[in-house]
């Protein structure tokens, strides 16, 4: 190695300076990443989401499907009207319900209930579902998303989670459909 090839004091200092900046940058990247990823990480901490009331049972006559709305538990004042979330409540009998997300299982458009023909229809790409939420026709690959529910002191409660999407279906469909589990009730679900 000739003398000219030997790193000078200056060159070494520049390298150390760059390394120093890289180290500080790496340290700063940690809070920045945590900040950016907070919607993903925070949600996991909160876990399952809260039970939300849809109102008293009298609002939902047996044998009918009615629209209900609830305030999402994560709502903040700046959410305005977007915090109000609609869902379809189908009261089969007694304490047996089916509560469907408003979002079509295809691309999330709001499905509408037609009591005359007992069908849910989607205005976007024409997905159609039967009254028990199972797929009837159109592009959806599955039936409608369902909420877990429970009845307490004459109130209907549902577990509000994240917006149901085809890729994240697990979050809402933990509560299984009464039509799927109980064969004795299947006649009323068909």
């Amino acid at each position, binding site marked *: 190695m000739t003398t000219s090839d030997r790193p000078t004091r200056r060159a070494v200092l520049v390298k150390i300076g760059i390394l120093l900046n890289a180290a500080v940058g790496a340290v700063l990247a940690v809070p920045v990443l945590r900040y950016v990823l907070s919607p993903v990480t925070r949600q996991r901490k909160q876990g399952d*989401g809260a039970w939300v009331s849809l109102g008293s049972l009298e609002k939902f006559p047996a044998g009918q499907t009615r629209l209900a709305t609830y305030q999402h538990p994560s709502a903040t004042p700046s959410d305005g009207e*977007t915090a109000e979330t609609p869902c379809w409540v189908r009261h089969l009998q007694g304490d047996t319900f089916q509560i469907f997300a408003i979002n079509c299982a295809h*691309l999330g458009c709001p499905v509408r209930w037609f009591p*005359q023909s007992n069908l849910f229809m989607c*205005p*976007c*790409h024409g997905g159609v579902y039967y009254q028990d939420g199972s797929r009837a026709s159109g592009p959806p690959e599955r039936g409608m998303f369902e909420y877990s529910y429970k009845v307490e002191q004459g109130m209907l409660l549902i577990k509000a989670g994240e917006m149901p999407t085809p*890729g*994240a279906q697990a979050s809402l469909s933990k509560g299984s459909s009464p039509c799927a589990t109980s064969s004795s009730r299947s006649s009323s679900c068909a």
Partner: protein
Amino acid sequence: MRHLLIQELVVRVIKRVGRWFDQRLQLAGPIKETMAHPVPRRTASWFYVFGSGALTVFLLQLVTGILLAIVYVPSAGEAWSSLQALNYQISAGWFIRALHGWGSNFMLAIVVIHMVQVFLFGAHKYPRELTWIVGVFLLLMTLGMAFTGQVLRFDQDAYWGLGIGTSIVSRVPFVGPQLVSLLLGGPIIAAATLSRFFALHVFVIPGTLIALVALHLLLVLKLGINEWPMPGRIVRRATYLQEYHELTQRDGVPFVPSAVVKDIFFSAAILLSIAVCAFVLGPFGPSGQPDPTIIQTAPQPDFFFLWLYTLLSLLPPSSETPILLIGPAIALIVLIGLPFFAGEGEKSWKRRPIAVLTVLLIAVGLGTLTHLGQYTPWSPIMDAWSSQPIPGKYLISRSPLERQGALVFQSKQCRNCHSLGDTGGQRGPPLDQVAVRLTQDQLIRQVIQGGGNMPAYRNNLSPPQTTALVAFLQTLHPIGQAPARDASQTELLKLGP
């Protein structure tokens, strides 16, 4: 005399001020050089104005965007009312919104035309590969601006459009749900969602656009404007730079004023067109409030995403997710890879039939999908059953049973998907002549069992209702043409009892 003296004085002051600045900035030389640099004579053409046209519209978008930002409130609870204020309370607010909205449409259109022109003129070939690649990213950024801008117009379409975007993103394998949370900023579409789309539309994407536009322009200046392609003049890496240099020296004209004249006139024409569209046709929306509990809505994306909307309804369900996720990646790879596998050879579109056919195919494809997206024949017309009665001609001299069937047809929402006399949905086939196509047995089977994209009605119709409905459907055949009949029944009739 005195007048002349004053004039001379003013000129001297201006010159001295100019010199003062240039001694410090030292930009006069490079600017003069850039303006006077020779470009091939034939590039001073109306075909070469789209790049500068896109830049002009981009500047218009920057100015009108800043003007809108001083009034717009990026909060989910207030964005919609701030748009109402812009439209109805602030002087000329509606016009600034209209300029920004129409500017967006024009910008996308000009960017696409620019891209097609560049491709057909072979400008993506050596040595302008990087210019093309930067251009591809400029297209992506422009599309990104169009989508995020549509979200900032925080109305029903924006809300449910976000829902569609979210549903697509959620299908990404493994990390779909995490991406959804990242996109929405929380579990649902709400304030956090609008805030992050505001940041994207106002800071992130425009910043990237400005940087990429600067890079794009720098490359155009460094490498020179693509010469007019001549059939038979082949691009070779070894000789091209020398040939281009000779061409500009031998047959070049100074960029200013020879080439820039048409750019200037085109820019003025585009700005005028945008202004006229904005003035005559007004701003886009906002449509209804972004209230998810108002479900009486049929959301539709803006014009430039209609083709995607159509594609999503026409793809078979099983192949939808793979095509949605893999398709864009393939398109991007092809666009970026283009100058590498077609970086030499003929530039002229007259000698590149496959290039011309590809452009035509894509244009016809996107055009057809967009056209279909404008009247959405796949969507049920949600209120047809209650708003579009069966035409009278289908009810005249029918039996009571058949009329009862017509009533069933109307009240059971059949008309939401089936048209009669050109009214009603187009999701299913029109039924004006259904009796010619299907026999009585087939009609009963279709109604009861459904199939072929129709729901089964076995649980929704009583036997008398089905009988009446089928009786009505059997009357739907042209006068003088007999309804379809089962051939075996004809034989039975011949045999007799």
